[in-house]
């Protein structure tokens, strides 16, 4: 059972890290847009 849980946890950790990466890119993009609008 240990390996089964490890595999499921690893899967969702990888997906969560990718979602975090996408979120940070969206955040950076929003900031850049705001700066462009200011200029």
């Amino acid at each position, binding site marked *: *059972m240990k*390996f*089964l849980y490890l*595999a499921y946890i*690893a899967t969702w950790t*990888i997906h969560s890290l990718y979602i975090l990466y*996408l979120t940070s890119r*969206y955040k950076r993009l929003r900031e850049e847009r705001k700066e*462009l609008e200011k200029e």
Partner: protein
Amino acid sequence: MKRSFTFFALLTLGLLCYALYQGMVVAPTEATMGDVQRIFYYHLPHAWVAFLLFFTNFLASIWYLVRRTQQSDALALASAEVGVVFCTVVLVTGPLWARPVWGIWWTWDARLTSTLVLWLIYVSYLVLRRFATGAQTQVLAAALAIFGFVDVPIVYLSIRYFRTQHPQPVIAGGEGSGLDPRMWTAVLWNLAGFLSFALLLIWQRYRLALAENAVEEAHANRALGPEAEMPAKPDSRGFAPEYGSAPKMGNKPR
């Protein structure tokens, strides 16, 4: 747009929860391997979805080379990136299944090695896109993607043409292959859940790529000055000014 995204996200969440229930509770315990076989319900759908995403990347790259549209380039990038994420899951869950069943984490057989090569090809594609500069980067990346896709059928066929440590195919694998119907149900629910999840990720990554392109263009136009943002208009003599400068002697009217 936001409402349809929320609806799709909730649908995906529901599918994934039900798929987890199918894989952990409804599907029977495999006779020889025991509960560790249930890793299969995550491992196999991730592999199939990764293949599908790399195929999407292949088609989008061809489309880009023919039409040179931003949409095709954004789709190619999104599908490759999400494909690498899914392929990473395949490469992580495989050894976690292999260790208790084979007694080893990894072996250099045809299926495992060709899958690792596939992952490396698409990681190099993403590295090229991230760090290369110049006008030809997208064209080079599209060419790499088209040649890189050749490895997908090699991965798929590797367990049919080579003697491997990896288990034989469960679909069209000849006599003695196949699954218990309840196991099939769990595989299909997980496939539906992860396919839906992959579509959700691609949708977001595609929109992000297009928005980033638009911001980059806006930055470039800002840097070139107000003339660059204006469309070139011919002057009274019919000469089109290049970036706002006066026409050079000998230029022909365009």
